């Protein structure tokens, strides 16, 4: 608190970034959202957003993002927990991240091959007697691949939170006769809640605007707000409508941040 000035000087690059690369684009998007497809000033895009087509799309985006986040958390938490118990935990953690450096389109193509009618997954199902199933272009494959892509983003913050935890706390809990479930619920989970929250944010927010996988893996059976924006920018060249959907995405994100952020006041 002593000299606010010097704090602000350190802060300049970040503020500059916010001004140039966040505020300026938001203003640009807002500006575009008030133009209809023929370049006239109008509110038609906002009107259009409240038609059943887009509302339905918003709901389904939410639903899928919610599923993806939930499943990622269910997989990532135990993984992160077990990773902290391994011998070379930092190395294993790095190895979790490495696959994400291979190009996404290539990995999607690989998944098409794996989940295809003659792919490994179906070969396995056949071998255990279930028989061939349609896996590609289903909700299952879409959620599976999305979770696959987001999982490192969920594991990292949770791992960091778990890793810092003081082992004596657990010993103390054990000594006091707490069951493992009790220890988890009362000691471990609350202490890692910040990590979990970060993980959910970095998964849920981008999951809302997923687009490429909706086509590659779900064969356009899943339509999200991201897909629609993509279409408006790259196919119709209706930047107004695309921007309008983006405005709503940003508003939704702000709402989420305030709802999840308020719980911890005065930290």
């Amino acid at each position, binding site marked *: 608190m002593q000299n606010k000035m010097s704090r602000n000087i350190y802060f300049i690059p970040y503020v500059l970034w916010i001004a140039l690369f966040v505020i300026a684009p938001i203003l640009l998007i807002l500006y575009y959202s008030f133009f209809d*497809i023929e370049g006239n000033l109008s509110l038609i895009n906002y009107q259009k957003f409240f038609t059943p*087509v887009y509302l339905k799309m918003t709901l389904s985006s939410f639903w899928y993002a919610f599923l993806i986040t939930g499943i990622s958390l269910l997989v990532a938490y135990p993984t992160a927990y077990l990773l902290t118990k391994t011998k070379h935990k930092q190395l294993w953690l790095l190895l979790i991240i490495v696959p994400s450096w291979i190009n996404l389109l290539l990995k999607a*193509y690989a998944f098409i091959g794996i989940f295809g009618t003659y792919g490994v997954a179906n070969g396995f199902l056949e071998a255990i007697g279930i028989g061939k199933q349609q896996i590609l*272009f289903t909700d299952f494959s879409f959620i599976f691949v999305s979770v696959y892509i987001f999982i490192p983003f969920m594991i990292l913050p949770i791992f960091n939170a778990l890793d810092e935890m003081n082992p004596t706390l657990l010993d103390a809990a054990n000594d006091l006769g707490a069951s493992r479930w009790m220890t988890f619920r009362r000691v471990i989970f609350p202490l890692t809640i910040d990590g979990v929250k970060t993980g959910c944010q970095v998964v849920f927010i981008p999951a809302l605007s997923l687009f490429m996988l909706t086509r590659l893996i779900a064969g*356009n059976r899943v*339509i999200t707000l991201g897909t629609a924006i993509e279409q408006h920018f*790259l196919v119709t*060249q*209706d930047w107004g409508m695309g921007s309008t959907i983006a405005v709503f995405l940003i508003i939704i994100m702000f709402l989420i941040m305030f709802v999840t952020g308020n719980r911890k006041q005065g930290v």
Partner: protein
Amino acid sequence: MKKLVQMFLVISVVSALLLYAISRLNTSQGFTSSYTLTIYNWGDYIDSDLIDRFEEETGIKVIYETFDSNEAMMTKIEQGGTTYDIAIPSEYMIDKMREEDLLVPLDHSKLPNLKNIDERFINLPFDPENKFSVPYFWGTVGIVYNSKMLGGKEITAWADLWDNDLKNEILLTDGAREVMGMGLNSLNYSLNDTNEEHLQEAKAKLDTLTPNIKAIVGDESRMLLEAQEAAIGLVWSGVASEIMAENEDLEYVVPEEGSNLWFDNMVIPKTTKNVDAAHQFINFMLDPEVAAQNAEYVSYSTPNKEALKYMPEEVVKDERFYPSPELTEKLEVYENLGKKNLARYNELFLEFKMHRK
């Protein structure tokens, strides 16, 4: 802290080394020379040996950049900031780009080889008198089907797709014009129709196709069809000819109700800094021998009549990919419908996609 400083230093040093390597490579490739020509094209859509040959013959250094959609390409050219001397857009884009004043008129006196192009493909509605564009490759939109998977069934018309036996077998392409066009054609309307009632009718017709549709995909359809993931696909003829070379059970047909005739064309965008070299390049690509070599590499149909003489007979005589004038007569080229109508097409297409669930 030591670790942080270490990391900082290591990355800086590695980056510096990489930058040095890049600049060495760039100079050795001549990319820094001032007399350059920048080509903006789809990925892998030219035989790179021809670029080398052009460089040798003219002493002009070629920079090859790629895009993955017409619209994205147009946005880049519209915004400027980079110099493109040649671009290869599809036909409907040319009208749009001309409207936005993004094209440089061609000087026909510098393009003596223009005479090699088949008359059928000269003076087309999207660019009367070829003021701005020269056709690069052409083709049709049609149906690829796997006769083995369909048990010898033959497909000749759009209407054949609405068959109850074809459940979950069809791959559509993720394009509003193509899919709506198929709906319109199957009702014997023009695929440039803008009548709202006709469009609604087409969309309703498409909705009834839903049970037969496996997925609506993009470029990956080639891989899915090759791998027999689905038996039927709505594709461009160029894609068809390539995958048929890989899988001999595949058959290609242009539906009898009519379909789309497409062109990819060479243009000189407004961003050019080297109009002269651009003309030289276009003329070079129109050379019969060059065009033949390019067509063999890319395996799409060339509009260059003289080039056909240099190509294997079984390719040139293949009616599926070099349809006769009588057949092309029945096909339609996409017109630029204007933004509003295009938006309507897209809206209906979006609703059709959502209907699937």
